[in-house]
């Protein structure tokens, strides 16, 4: 169901992070982080609060600007060109069309309907023909189970529905890589399952995903690799079975004791589905 | 900037204009606030006649340009037998006009006041004027601080309109320096900077009230 994979080399990887560091003032949030993600992998970033997981994720598409290090998507640098020049808005925007992002608080555009939200970027950024964009948008909404809500405004949707629209919206750009920033943390427990189900299907279909999450059952079931961060460094990485049943570091063990004791009911439901 | 030297030479006139502006504004603001506090309960009264009268007055003042109102008070009232000099007319216009605004501000602040502390005060035996002064008024003023500050700044600026009835306030002083010495830029810029100073003083006051409010939130 999910492929356990060894970390790829930088050349073969779809996404390559090298020596990423970032500080907010005096606080060093990311300390010399490097890892690679191969095509089709689902990597889950786990760690306690304050470990830097979200900041690391946001450095991938340069929503946060790393103080040091490089980000390569399919060999192409993001943020700083090969000449060492920091990229401007235009160049960065072009690269960002290849990376999709799903946000913790959904970030849907409230003045647009569900369908318009999904169509907005393909239409106005990728400038694809309207009929084609509409057909694909409807297909995506169908895929996440929300086609019947296409003319509704986001304010009328539940949290779980909003997040599924958020996923459809990110997919509409046909990205090579999907980033998830704690996609279910803002949801009521009974709505978590519907979103995780969509994510699990995406992983199965071979989408390359990097997911920051606290849903341990999901990580265990759907991830092809776990990257465990603590205090800004990668402490441990490996296949989920190995990480969850026999963590090799003490810090990972402490973390699992605290967090992985009781999977949420919804997550358990998918695991058993 | 020789012109500014000329203005500096006339600083007595300018500062006396400033003083008049301050006096006008402060007196009007305080009186308008006091009268507005009396009018506000009428605005919220359940009895239809007083509520309607109060509402009509407030809406009329809110929709009337102050300069026109000042003209009416100064030029129009004599034909009714009331003879005001320009100081009295200016003060009357400012106070009457802003009473309506102050009443509206207090009404708005009252509408968002929590009711439990007042109920508690009743339970403890507070009533009448003591209830009003010690329990109702302080939180009301604290919460309305910024808006009242804004209105005070508005009063300062409206006082400048009174130059039309030859009240010797700041703009009038700048105007007369300008017309006598042909230094329009220097004279009016000096006035503008002084108005700005007044505004900053009021805003500092509002900030202080805001800090008091925060400490009690």
């Amino acid at each position: 169901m999910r492929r356990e994979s060894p970390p790829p080399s930088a050349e073969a990887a779809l996404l390559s992070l090298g020596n990423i560091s970032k500080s907010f003032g005096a606080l060093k949030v990311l300390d010399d982080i490097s890892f690679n993600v191969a095509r089709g992998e689902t990597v889950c970033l786990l760690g306690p609060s304050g470990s830097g997981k979200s900041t690391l994720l946001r450095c991938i598409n340069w929503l946060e600007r790393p103080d040091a290090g490089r980000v390569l998507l399919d060999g192409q640098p993001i943020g700083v060109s090969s000449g060492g020049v920091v990229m401007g808005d235009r160049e960065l925007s072009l690269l960002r069309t290849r990376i999709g992002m799903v946000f913790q608080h959904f970030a849907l555009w409230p003045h647009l309907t569900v369908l318009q939200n999904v169509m907005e970027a393909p239409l106005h950024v990728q400038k694809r023909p309207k009929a084609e964009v509409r057909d694909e948008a409807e297909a995506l909404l169908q895929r996440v189970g929300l086609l019947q809500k296409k003319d509704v405004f986001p304010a009328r949707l539940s949290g779980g529905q909003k997040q599924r629209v958020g996923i459809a919206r990110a997919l509409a750009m046909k990205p090579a890589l999907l980033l998830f920033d704690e996609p279910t943390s803002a949801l009521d427990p009974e709505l978590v399952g519907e979103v995780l189900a969509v994510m699990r299907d995406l992983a199965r279909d071979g989408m390359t995903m990097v997911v920051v999450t606290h849903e341990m059952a999901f990580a265990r079931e759907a991830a092809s690799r776990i990257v465990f961060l603590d205090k800004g460094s990668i402490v441990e990485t490996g296949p989920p079975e190995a990480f969850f049943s026999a963590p090799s570091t003490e810090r990972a063990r402490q973390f699992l004791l605290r967090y992985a004791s009781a999977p949420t009911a919804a997550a358990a439901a998918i695991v058993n589905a | 900037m020789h012109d500014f030297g000329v203005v500096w030479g006339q600083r007595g006139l300018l500062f006396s204009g400033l003083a008049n502006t301050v006096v006008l504004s402060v007196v009007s603001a305080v009186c308008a606030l006091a009268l507005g506090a009396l009018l506000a309960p009428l605005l919220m009264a359940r009895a239809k006649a007083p509520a309607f009268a109060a509402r009509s007055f407030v809406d009329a003042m809110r929709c009337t340009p102050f300069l026109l109102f000042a003209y009416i008070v100064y030029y129009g009232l004599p034909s009714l037998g009331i003879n005001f000099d320009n100081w009295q007319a200016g003060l009357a216009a400012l106070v009457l006009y802003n009473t309506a605004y102050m009443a509206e501000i207090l009404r708005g602040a009252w509408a968002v006041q929590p009711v439990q502390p007042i109920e508690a005060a009743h339970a403890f035996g507070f009533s009448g004027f003591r209830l009003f002064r010690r329990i109702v008024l302080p939180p009301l003023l604290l919460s309305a601080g910024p808006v009242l500050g804004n209105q005070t700044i508005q009063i300062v600026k409206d006082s400048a309109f009174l130059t039309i009835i030859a009240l010797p306030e700041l703009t009038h002083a700048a105007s007369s320096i300008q017309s006598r010495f042909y230094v329009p830029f220097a004279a009016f810029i000096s006035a503008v900077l002084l108005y700005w100073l007044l505004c900053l003083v009021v805003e500092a006051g509002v900030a202080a009230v805001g800090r008091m409010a925060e400490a009690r939130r």
Partner: protein
Amino acid sequence: MSWGDVVAILQGAVTTLTLSAIGILLGLPIGLGLALIRWSRLPLASPLVAVYVSLLRATPLVTLLLLLFFALPNVGIPVGPIEAGVISLTMNTSAFNCEVWRAALMDFPKDQLEAAQSMGMRRGLRFRRIVLPQLVKVSLPGLINEMSLLIKVTPVLAVVGVVDVTRAAVRIGAESYEPLPPFFVAIAIYLPIVFALVSLQRFVERRHAGGAFA
């Protein structure tokens, strides 16, 4: 007061409304431009705009008008009463509009912008399609309030000789030794216009009472 007098006041009203309209139409985009400069925090421009807006908001319109009317010709820019009037109205209202737009910009949810950024929308596109439509909705009550305030200060134009409602009323009152009736006509003209704007503002506020940026 004769009918001729009433007509004269009405003609003044046309002048008042025309100049108000120009001030409003110019003040809206200029205010937005100033707000964007402040929001973008450009190194030199942003603090300059902050000082400019603070000064203009503290300055009485009559003082600004007299300054422009007398000082500009002195430095070689010939302005008549109407030009001085329009410029001062526009400067004044654009400064207040700037604060209205800026309050809405500061309230704008960052994550909607990040979502747009993450999909490769460039700055101009983000502003046009995501920020502006919502910004207008949220700013509308404040902007309408500013419009009603602008109309209420237009009598100041009379001070420099523009023949608006107020000046017409004053002239007729002086000629006929009956100052009150023309003033009442003038108020009868202002009241419904301002009242209409205030009602419009209340209507817009009620319609969007359910949360600004959702």
